[in-house]
């Protein structure tokens, strides 16, 4: 019996009786965005007919569910689903090419794929590259099931996939400062949120259902929401104040606010800086840490006794945050003193000129944040005292995805540091809870951040650490030649293969290897990163490409040789969507809620579970042992980099086992939650929930670890990075690698003159019914979204439209200075900055997604990335483009 047959037989053993009932509910997890809210699905005569949230669970909206999750039910019945393997018979590859699919058997499909993989591995495993995204029905299987296969194979890191807005800086700084994927306000207690870009609490994304619920309740009880954003019709519409701003200029406002707080208002959380940041590490004239000569440990000055001590000295009591001292015979100052002085240059009037946010508004925001933060206050929860700081600045997506993103994002978080609100009650939390003290009955399911190298905060949960280069300690450069994303040269940043100058750079590096096989899961790299032509240039070069998807898209049709049918998420048993993906664990004091994606029915047609497919491929390719080890590491949290790496951690999956998906899920559940809480228990009870402790929700002051507010590793590594990178043709502003968060204008303000005819800035924004282009293919979503004036149209300021002779409903063209164009219907709105054009990223053409064809606009078609258009510290692509707009057809 092969692995698939084993799985099906076991499925019938476990779910067979249930499936015979006429009318029953199944607990599962939504997959229409990476919020992965808990759902329950009503099944009548074996057919899913209704879906809603789970009222008793804190994972999601406690019974509510967004429109995407509800509408997703129809996708199960979509006649366009891929139900059997297909192969391309049109040898030409390219955007808009018709693949002319031919149905083939699973044997032929897997044999072909395995043959190609083996041949590529023989040449060089790095010639196998992959891509994934938390796709429309893929959930987080991309990160686990798919990605670990390619890691086990020795393949190259994922290319693109997650999309242009995906948070390079957010994840990097999230890992460094929060030991988390990113951040979310503690809505239960927060009284004031300054939100800068990002649609969390309004649309999709991690914790989406929960944050909508929490934020709505918070606003109802009086939480003030202020939104700084180039457009005001998404989350800003919920707030008390919309503060329009030019894209990519938030950095100026943040630095000015930081300056006001530290150097004018003078009220900030000194104890937080003293005990929780590297603001106390002594910096010498060379801008590096002053270190103890014998041990190399960084040094502090202890105000309590006037001595210089190492960072881990047990007598250290009152490390200084200001002043001048002598250590190792050199004059030195605490890093915070440098930060404080450095901020003085960033004045509100200066920031106003750059951002168009009035200087008085900047001053007022600084004052409001300080007043609302109640610095110094404490709250008692369940007998545990924690700091209480009910004010925060939060941002994601649009704000942090720019060419200056690292500095912009650290500038934002500097404000949170000054307020002392990180991972304390009412403040800003690492989303998903980075710390678990364990499931009460077993003690397993345990992870925690800790103070690692040089006492710096180090992530506990593995997903962040295996992001590769994002978390502490910093990566050292070793290349070029090992990575075609150049992160072996740039450190934490990666430059995508879809950039305009990638070929030249790779050639300069000696073209160490070339792509042989490309595997994509859940994503749509042709559409969701840069202009399709740039993706096409790379993908055309790949001799063999394959995908595992439930639906076709522009990437599969244009470039894949074989597409395998993945089961729809309502047919899927999957634990990784609920588990180990830390950013969706309920935040703050919401209860731990462990759910499972459970099938409503067996897969239709010949569709298969992704885990079974990858297990099968692992066997064929000969990497089962490594793959099992990778999955086992993941599910046991073995690589969580706990302080004691020598602790014996029992296995869930033995190296040579041909374990099926369903068996694996059962074992994982029992491993963490006990023998009585395996798959059958979840089948009958739906989910598991237990109370969260304040020491978990608000862990910051319970862990002895510091975060960087001075990035000494940048000072240390700058010359080495510059040397290696310039050797292969990177010519960039290496001043970005500075210890002090500083103002750098995004390239969009420097590459063209201020009076350029390309006078508008294109941004893209979320829509509450759209996430991924895939959602536009759902007829129920389309039915309702087509009534929304902002969804399918190009949104432009009313006054700007009038100046340009453009009227509501006209067809216009947006053209960038490279000559790329998009056209669409315009909606004139008062809720858009006059210099901005806002577009929801759509504009599909795939034949396999007919409902979405020709609807909306693809703003990514205007984006060209190269070494000058991405952040060299944390990889964020610059997604804002300057365009000129002109009418091409009147509406009337």
């Amino acid at each position, binding site marked *: 019996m092969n692995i698939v047959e084993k799985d099906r037989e076991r499925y019938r053993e476990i779910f067979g009786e249930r499936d015979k009932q006429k009318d029953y509910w199944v607990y599962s997890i939504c997959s229409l965005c990476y919020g992965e809210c808990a759902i329950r699905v009503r099944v009548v005569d074996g057919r899913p007919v209704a879906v809603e949230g789970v009222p008793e669970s804190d994972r999601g909206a406690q019974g509510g569910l967004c*429109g995407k999750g509800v509408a997703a039910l129809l996708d199960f019945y979509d006649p366009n689903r891929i139900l059997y393997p297909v192969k391309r018979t049109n040898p030409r590859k390219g955007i808009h090419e018709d693949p002319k699919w031919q149905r083939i058997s699973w044997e032929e499909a897997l044999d072909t794929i395995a043959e190609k993989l083996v041949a590529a591995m023989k040449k060089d495993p790095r010639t196998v590259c992959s891509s994934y995204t938390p796709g429309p029905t893929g959930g987080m299987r991309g990160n686990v099931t798919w990605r670990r296969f390619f890691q086990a194979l020795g393949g190259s890191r994922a290319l693109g996939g997650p999309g242009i807005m995906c948070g390079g800086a957010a994840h990097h700084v999230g890992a460094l400062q929060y030991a988390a994927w990113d951040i979310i306000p503690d809505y239960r207690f927060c009284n004031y949120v300054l939100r800068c870009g990002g649609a969390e609490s309004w649309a999709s994304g991690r914790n989406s259902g929960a944050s909508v619920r929490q934020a709505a309740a918070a606003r109802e009880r009086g939480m003030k929401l202020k939104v700084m954003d180039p457009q005001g019709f998404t989350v800003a519409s919920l707030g008390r104040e919309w503060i329009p701003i030019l894209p990519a200029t938030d950095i100026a406002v943040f630095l000015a606010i930081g300056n006001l707080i530290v150097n004018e208002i003078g009220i900030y959380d000194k104890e937080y800086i003293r005990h929780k940041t590297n603001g106390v590490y002594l910096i010498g004239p060379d801008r590096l840490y002053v270190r103890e000569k014998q041990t190399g440990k960084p040094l502090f000055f202890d105000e309590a006794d006037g001595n210089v001590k190492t960072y881990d000295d047990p007598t250290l009591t009152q490390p200084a945050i200001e002043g001048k001292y002598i250590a190792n015979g050199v004059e030195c100052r605490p890093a915070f003193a440098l930060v404080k002085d450095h901020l003085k240059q960033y004045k509100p009037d200066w920031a106003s000129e750059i951002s168009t946010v009035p200087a008085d508004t900047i001053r007022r925001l600084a004052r409001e944040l300080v007043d609302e933060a109640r610095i110094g206050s404490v709250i008692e929860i369940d007998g545990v005292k924690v700091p209480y700081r009910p004010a925060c600045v939060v941002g994601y997506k649009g704000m942090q995805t720019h060419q200056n993103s690292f500095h912009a994002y650290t500038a934002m978080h500097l404000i949170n540091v000054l307020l002392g609100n990180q991972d304390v009650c009412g403040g800003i939390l690492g989303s998903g809870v980075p710390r678990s003290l364990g499931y009460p009955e077993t003690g397993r399911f345990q992870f925690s951040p800790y103070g690692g190298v040089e006492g710096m905060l180090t992530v506990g949960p593995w997903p962040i650490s295996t992001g590769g280069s994002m978390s502490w300690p910093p990566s050292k450069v070793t290349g070029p030649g090992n990575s075609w994303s150049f992160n072996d040269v740039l450190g934490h940043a990666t430059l995508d293969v879809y950039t305009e100058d990638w070929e030249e750079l790779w050639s300069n590096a000696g073209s160490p290897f070339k792509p042989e096989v490309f595997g994509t899961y859940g994503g749509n790299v042709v559409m969701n990163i840069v202009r399709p032509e740039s993706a096409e240039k790379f993908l055309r070069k790949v001799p063999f490409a394959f995908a595992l998807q439930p639906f076709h898209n522009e990437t599969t049709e244009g470039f894949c040789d074989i597409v395998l049918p993945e089961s729809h998420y309502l047919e899927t048993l999957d634990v990784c969507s609920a588990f180990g993906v830390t950013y969706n664990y309920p935040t703050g004091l919401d209860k731990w809620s462990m759910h499972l994606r459970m099938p409503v029915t067996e897969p239709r047609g010949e569709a298969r579970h992704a885990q079974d497919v990858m297990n099968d491929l692992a066997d064929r390719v000969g990497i089962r042992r490594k793959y099992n080890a990778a999955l086992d590491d993941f599910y046991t949290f073995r690589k969580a980099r706990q302080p004691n790496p020598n602790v014996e951690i029992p296995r869930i999956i033995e190296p040579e086992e041909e374990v099926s998906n369903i068996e694996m899920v059962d074992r994982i559940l029992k491993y963490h939650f006990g023998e009585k809480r395996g798959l059958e228990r979840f089948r009958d009870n739906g989910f598991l929930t237990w109370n969260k402790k304040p020491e978990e929700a608000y862990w910051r002051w319970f862990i002895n670890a510091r975060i960087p507010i001075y990035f000494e590793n940048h000072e240390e590594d700058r010359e080495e990075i510059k040397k290696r990178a310039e050797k292969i043709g990177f010519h960039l502003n290496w001043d970005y690698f500075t210890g002090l968060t500083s103002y750098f204008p995004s390239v969009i303000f420097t590459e063209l003159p201020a009076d350029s005819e390309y006078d508008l800035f294109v941004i893209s924004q979320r829509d509450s019914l759209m996430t991924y282009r895939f959602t536009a293919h759902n007829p129920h979503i389309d039915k309702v979204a087509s009534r929304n004036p902002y969804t399918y149209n190009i949104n432009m300021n009313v006054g700007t439209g009038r100046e340009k002779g453009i009227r509501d409903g006209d067809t216009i063209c947006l053209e960038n200075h490279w000559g790329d164009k998009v056209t669409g219907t315009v909606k004139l709105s008062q809720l858009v900055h006059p210099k901005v054009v806002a577009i929801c990223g759509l504009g599909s053409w795939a034949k396999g997604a*007919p409902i979405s064809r020709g609807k909306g606009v693809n703003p990514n078609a205007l984006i060209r990335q190269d070494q000058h258009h991405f952040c060299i510290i944390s990889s964020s692509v610059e997604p804002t483009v300057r365009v000129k707009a002109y009418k091409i057809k009147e509406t009337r």
Partner: protein
Amino acid sequence: MRWGMVINLNKCIGCDACAVKCNQEHFLPKGVLWSKTLISETGKYPRVKKHVYPVLCNHCKDPACTKVCPTGATQQREDGIVWVDQNKCIGCRHCMISCPYQSRSYHSEEKEYYPGQGFTEWETIGRILYPLRVGVVSKCIFCKERIDEGIKKGLKPGVDREATPACVIICPAKARYFGDLDDNESEVSKLIHEKGAVQLYRAHGTDPSVYYIGGIEEAPVVTKYFGIRVFDTSPELTFKEGATGSEENE
């Protein structure tokens, strides 16, 4: 006993989950929508307000529609729910013209959700569970089948999910409430009283059973059906339905 609904616009995020859930709950065919969101803007940049009003049939206490129905298809129950008996409806659409809130939909023809690809199993199931004849008018029914079945089981509408309208239970912001307006102690009655919830366009005189917390009685929202503009109070206001959207824009 008079069933009513309160929608809290301070919590509502305009996500349209209500509209989509209603569509799913009643297997609405293509071209028919019982629950909608009206969107508009007032003010001038940068001092602008976006208005989002989820709307549905108001199940008015004194409905205009029942007075004009020639066949008695449109009728009102004792608990206030207004519904259309499609076996009696002749599709004259006088009710649609008379309704000041334009809450009704006319099912003009059978259309596939995936044009040219046949009806999906979901649509086929819908035609069995919730058949809707071509040529009739339909609208929100406050999920009366959920209410009636729920009461039979001893459940309380507005409290027990199974007995409560689908749009109420699905709201992720928990912005919707349902209950008995004739009971002063019900949650909806208390909310109306304590939060100053308003009815839309009271001046029409039909006494709607749907109230809005944080709403404006003469709400600056626009809907356009059959060329009739309603709620259009501002000459600066523009509203453009999705230009490349579906055939909803009749």
